[in-house]
């Protein structure tokens, strides 16, 4: 177990290092002025340029610059965005929670809906309720996320006029960002009518969450359905049946656990897909998350922001993936034989 942990930590450290090296070289590869690409500041005078070059160690060797870059990253000094002249750390701290929030809701939805659907489909396969579930999972899996999002907007916002098309909360609520999670921030804020604010936040949540989770829910349902079908044909289930257990007891005692454990890593891996999809949906629903922020940074050639945004997103996705992999490995004894840490 300790050996395993060390291997995983090792993997994280190595990957982070590779990402750091890559992100360090990005501004050298971007077009334009290197100094602006790194600092986000366009010097107005020659003195200012020289002062900045010294401050950012551009007069020293590339190795010095790299060490300086790492030091700055870890001390929280991430530079400023060329477009807004705001500290990138503040910006990432402002936008990332919105993405995480959407990921969490979409994941919860996918788990709460996708897994039960998979069980129903698998247990009743090729009968009544299985067909709509299979249809949903194939259709849901096949649609591109951005297309679903647009259809949702057309139907629920423009035609039925039920739900808002954009944002996290009506702009009229002047909500200070404390944790960055809208629902928690409302609880912490001094807004007078909190239930109205919650309702408003909820209305903004519905469509983006659904749009992101359609694909994941469909995938979850497919995996779970396949897995439970396999498990229910196992001999120990037949043995249990012959001993007179009710189908319900069999499912709870044997089916549930045995069907889920082998597919947990597959499900966990979907989280990174989910984050990617969230970033797409964010731009469509103007959800103020890191995805929308990055797309805008790309559009505005805001290289310091692209570098930090890319680094932040990839590190989060990577750590999430590796740690879920580690957790499933830890709870699934059959995989202990595999010693090497992998993605």
């Amino acid at each position, binding site marked *: 177990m300790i050996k395993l942990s060390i291997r995983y930590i090792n993997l994280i450290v190595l990957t982070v290092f590779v990402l750091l090296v890559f992100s360090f070289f990005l501004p050298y590869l971007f077009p334009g002025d290197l100094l602006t690409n790194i600092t986000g500041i366009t010097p107005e005078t020659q003195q200012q340029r020289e002062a900045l070059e010294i401050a950012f160690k551009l007069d020293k060797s590339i190795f010095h610059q790299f060490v300086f870059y790492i030091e700055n990253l870890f001390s929280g000094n991430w530079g400023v965005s060329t*477009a*807004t002249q*705001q500290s990138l750390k503040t910006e990432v701290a402002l936008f990332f929670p919105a993405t995480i929030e959407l990921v969490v809701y979409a994941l919860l939805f996918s788990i*709460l*809906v996708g897994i*039960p*659907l998979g*069980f*129903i489909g698998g*247990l*009743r396969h090729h009968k009544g*309720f299985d067909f709509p579930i299979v249809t949903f999972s194939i259709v849901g899996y096949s649609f591109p996320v951005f297309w679903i999002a647009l259809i949702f*907007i057309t139907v*629920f*916002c*423009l035609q*039925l*006029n*039920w*739900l*808002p*098309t*954009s*944002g996290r909360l*009506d*702009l*009229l*609520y*002047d909500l200070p960002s404390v944790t960055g999670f809208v629902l928690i921030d409302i609880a912490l804020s001094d807004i007078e009518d909190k239930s*109205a604010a919650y*309702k*408003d936040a*909820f*209305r903004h949540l*519905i469509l983006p969450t659904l749009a992101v989770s359609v694909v994941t829910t469909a995938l979850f349902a497919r995996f779970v359905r396949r897995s439970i079908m396999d498990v229910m044909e196992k001999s120990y289930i037949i043995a249990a049946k012959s001993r007179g257990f009710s*189908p*319900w007891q069999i499912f709870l005692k044997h089916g549930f656990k045995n069907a889920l454990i082998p597919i947990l890593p597959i499900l966990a891996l979907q989280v990174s897909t989910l984050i990617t999809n969230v970033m797409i949906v964010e731009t469509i629903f*103007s959800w*103020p998350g890191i995805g929308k922020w990055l797309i*805008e940074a790309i*559009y*505005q*050639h805001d290289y310091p922001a692209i570098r930090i945004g890319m680094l932040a997103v990839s590190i989060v996705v990577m750590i999430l993936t590796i740690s879920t992999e580690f957790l499933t490995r830890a709870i699934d004894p059959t995989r202990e034989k595999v010693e090497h840490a992998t993605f």
Partner: protein
Amino acid sequence: MKSYLANLSRILIALLLCGCLAACEKRDIQHIKNAVVYCSESNPSTFNPQLDTSSTTADATAHQIYDRLLEFNPENGRIEPGLASSWLVSDDGLTYTFQLRRGVEFHTTAYFTPSRSFNADDVIFSIERWKNESHPYHHVNGGSYPYFDSLGLADTIKEVRRINGYRVEITLDSPDSSFLANLATDFSVMLSAEYAMKLLAEGSPSRLDRYPVGTGPFKFVQFRQNQFIRYQRHESYFRPSQGIDQLIFDITQRSSLRMAKLITGECDAVAFPSQNDLVVIEEREDLSLYEEPGLNIGYWAFNTSKPPFDNPEVRKALALAVDKTSLIDAVYLGQATRAKSIVPSTSWAYESGARELGYNPVRAREILTEVGLPANFTMDIWAMPVQRAYNPNALKMAQLIKRYLEDVGIEVNIVSQDWNLFRQNLTNGFHDSVLIGWKADNGDPDNFYRPLLTCDAIPSGTNRALWCNKDYDALIEQALLTDDIEKRRAIYHKANLLIFEQFPLMPIAHAYQYQATRADITGMEINPFGGISFERVKRIQAIQEAEVRND
């Protein structure tokens, strides 16, 4: 198994119900808070319109946060008292004396509490900042004042003098009949000298243009790039009104998304509705559309500093090769009038008999052969990447022109870039020709003739033809020396002839201006002389409620 199904259906029903319930209470919050959400098209580059001529900046600041000494009446273009309650012009037209309004309060915000009301020091500070290069604030935040620079106003004004606390005297070097109009434009805002001095003492003068303090109907609360600008009503505004309490600019760059938000009610009003959406807006009962002939011009400018475009004959041949009527039909969809000269028919200087070039590709080809243009000549057409009333779809227009020019044997390369970069490259003169336009900031025709084509307007980046003609400049100067409209008209007639002969640009169209709002919003008049104003905007329901309470 049944219980799963039951659970599932319960969840689904609950979700649907929530959706419906939520839907029914949609617009309440806007009413409770008596607020208006305006979906604007982009980020203002600063919160001080002295520093920028872009209409995005003017919309977000000029009439919300600030006031001017004088104001235009949006209906007839007459100059009316603003912060100056009256003014006097000397007989020689050189001295202007302004009597200032008393008791005008500056905004009290989280970052500044004023200790005195508006007075002569603020006027002097606001003008000296852009006029006087040795002023401590002149170089703060760029030091470029494009509107004033393009008009050369800093050189026209000789002195700004304080007579007493509420009286200011401005002396000019030469008479300028558009001077009062310039003081009423979006750019001539009055800043707080007290706030500026406080910032200077704190060593953070650049905050002046980012955390603005003015006397206008709304005070600045918060700005988040690409997201929103939040304003709050200025309670002690000098023109008391029963308007809204909160104003929010929801920054939405895509025009389709702005339209969607207008339909769902997330926005109460939108900037620049696209031509295709106008029909939809007119059909819907819950939306209203306002239309007004705009003080603008869309044109095709040739870079006259670059061969072969330095030859007027080439420029004319290019214009002859293009059928203007079909451009107008295809791009403006009937929402514009054909432009003969650079001034629209709403201006008194409009000349209905002005000469213009028709569509004559045969003649165009003849000219091109005469001047000896190479057979496979290739040129760039730069198409502006943003929508403006004066050119709602420059890219499409460029493609049409490309096809016309192919007929006379010219290959066209269409260039489009990020808006800020685009404007910068135009100022650097990298283009061959560009499709762009101009929206006037005041009702005076000088506001078309001077910024579009004079020599001074080249470095300040409004003369996209980079055309510099001393005769033309002399005419434009001459037109300002008199107040007699007939005399000025005669001078502008000469200028029109000169433009026609030299042909630095091809005038295309004067577009109508549109504004779309929800039906329960009133008081959003289109201001042809500048940025949008929310001072008199109200919600109909809020008005009704107030009436009920009064009864």
